[in-house]
């Protein structure tokens, strides 16, 4: 932001365009309107599909459908209930079950994926490994597979009759593992997320490593640092901002988990209607058409996602550049 102001101040540009403090003789010029025309399309979309849905969602969350008569024979009326929906949600074991599950998911899946991504990125950036571009492509290709298709694809790997893994176990006279049972299904989903997003994170780390000035390496080598030492003391600290970004997106993605469990629900009885918070919101708002309670749950999910993102960004602040 600072550089931008300097640019404007330094540029020999007619002031009516770049400066709000136009000289009096230019007050009739309409040039000031241009920047607003440039941002207008974005603002329209932003207000319509970001601000309005959030505001409307929160308004809805303060209402509920109530039957006037005790028997429920009279048509339901929509009445203001204040924070009742939120109180109900906070006492709803279904919602907390979902939050707890995505928390456990994130605590395990994110570190595993990030460590693997970092190791591959370090090897990709190392001068001693051959066929780097092939390995890099192989890691990145799963990211081209849409999440839903990835879930369907891995679903076949988890289905006993068709899975090549189960085939291998059977041919070795072993009992194939149950990928879809209550104790394993979460990790089967974690595997799908890891498979899709590992290469994406690897590429973020790799791109950040490529941006490290070569002079640092030369200095380190003259100081007698080994390749492993360079990785530990230069590369990992230098790519900290990139790791922070990758971690942030992974935390958000974990809390928002929806596609994979929604697809696997079809073949696994272990996925219930409150498996993840978003699955719960979908079932309340869409399947049960309870817009009001669903609105409160969606707002809570958004709020908790924000709290976790904000907490993460605050806790990792100031550690930039190691």
């Amino acid at each position, binding site marked *: *932001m600072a550089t931008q102001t300097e640019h404007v101040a330094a*540029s020999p*540009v007619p002031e009516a365009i770049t400066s*709000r403090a136009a000289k009096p003789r230019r007050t009739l010029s309409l040039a000031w309107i*241009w920047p607003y*025309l*440039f*941002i207008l399309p*974005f*603002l329209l*979309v*932003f207000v319509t*599909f*970001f601000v309005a*849905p*959030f505001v*409307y*969602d929160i308004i809805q969350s303060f209402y509920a459908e109530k039957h006037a008569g005790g028997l429920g024979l009279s048509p339901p009326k929509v009445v203001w209930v204040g924070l009742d929906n939120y109180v109900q949600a906070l006492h709803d074991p279904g919602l907390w079950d979902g939050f707890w599950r995505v928390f456990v998911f994130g605590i395990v899946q994110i570190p595993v994926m990030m460590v*693997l991504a970092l*190791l*591959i990125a370090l090897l990709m950036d*190392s*001068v*001693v*490994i*051959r066929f*780097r*571009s092939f390995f890099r492509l192989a*890691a990145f*290709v799963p*990211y081209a*597979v849409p*999440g*839903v298709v990835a879930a*369907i*694809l891995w679903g*076949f790997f988890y289905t006993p009759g*068709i899975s*090549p893994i189960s*085939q291998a176990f059977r041919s070795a006279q072993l009992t194939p593992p149950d990928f879809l049972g209550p104790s394993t299904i979460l990790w089967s989903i974690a595997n799908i997320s890891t*498979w899709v997003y590992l290469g994406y994170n690897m*590429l973020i780390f*790799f*791109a*950040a490593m*490529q941006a490290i000035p*070569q002079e640092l390496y*030369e200095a380190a080598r003259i100081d007698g640092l080994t390749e492993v030492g360079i990785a530990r003391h230069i590369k990992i600290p230098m790519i900290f*901002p990139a790791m922070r*970004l990758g971690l942030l997106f992974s935390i958000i*993605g974990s809390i928002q988990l*929806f596609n994979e469990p*929604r*697809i696997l629900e*079809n073949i696994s009885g272990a996925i219930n209607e409150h498996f993840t918070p*978003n699955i719960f919101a*979908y079932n309340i708002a869409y399947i049960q058409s309870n817009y009001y309670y*669903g609105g409160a749950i*969606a707002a809570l*999910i958004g709020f908790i996602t924000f709290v976790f993102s904000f907490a993460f960004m605050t806790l990792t602040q100031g550690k930039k550049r190691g």
Partner: protein
Amino acid sequence: MATIPADLPNVPTEQSGGDRRQVLIGYKAWAPKNMVGYVFLIGMTIYFLTPLYWLFIASSKDNTDLFASFGLWFANFKLLDNLTQLFTYEGGIYLRWILNTVLYAVVGGAASTFIAMMAGYALAKLRFLGNRLLFAMVLGAALVPLTTLAVPIYLVESKIPGLTHTYWAVLLPTLLSPFGVFLARIYATASISDDLIAAARVDGASEFRIFWSVALPILVPGMITIFLFQFVAIWNNFFLPLVVLSDPTLFPVNLGLATWSFDPAAHELLNNIIVTGSFVAVLPVAVLFLFLQRYWRAGLSLGSVTG
């Protein structure tokens, strides 16, 4: 990229795909101590590629062989039969889904890229009241994924008569790309010089003319990166179409394949179509990815270094 220092005379350089790196004497690519790295990379590569390899093999099998034959090798080669079945099933609706997806991803991606370029250019190069506030909002919104917005958007759209269950219901929300604006601002700041804009103004060009004829051509690589990000986001979009569409003729291929796999009665009979349909859906995007890989790296490094 740094030049080779003069005090290290015997440093050869390795050139591969424009990636010019220094190789120091004493490092051998096949040294035993590097073998751990190779074993790890080969193991990971097997993990990444086996499911896709299986998908290719499986799309050549009929429903009997899918269950009866060894999964990682061909049985009776029925790829053409499967493709015929896939493209004629339910009156050829699969082709319709592919075309819908292309429509959503290409039109939505292109339109949102253009909207993001205009806003990002204005944020980077034009001074106006609310510039900082708008940028702060863009940053905040970039952290909110489309999934969070699916239920709220559904609530709003279901109140607008005639919007849900149309192409617009999916297309319009995908025009929003705060991350695209964020990237566009970075690209415009980095690659458009103020002198260039000033010169164009002296020549009497209008602000839009400057954006269109001077700035945009310079920003083409950035535009491709932003388009790719949004294209993939829309191609992956599942939650939103799931809740705002009910007419199967409007489905993107994601949702179409999912509904086939949701149908428990037909599931057993449809396995070969679902497998072949997944294969066909993956292929074009995977190819597009491989060819445009450098734009990904450009986008990711800028986004992560600055973010």
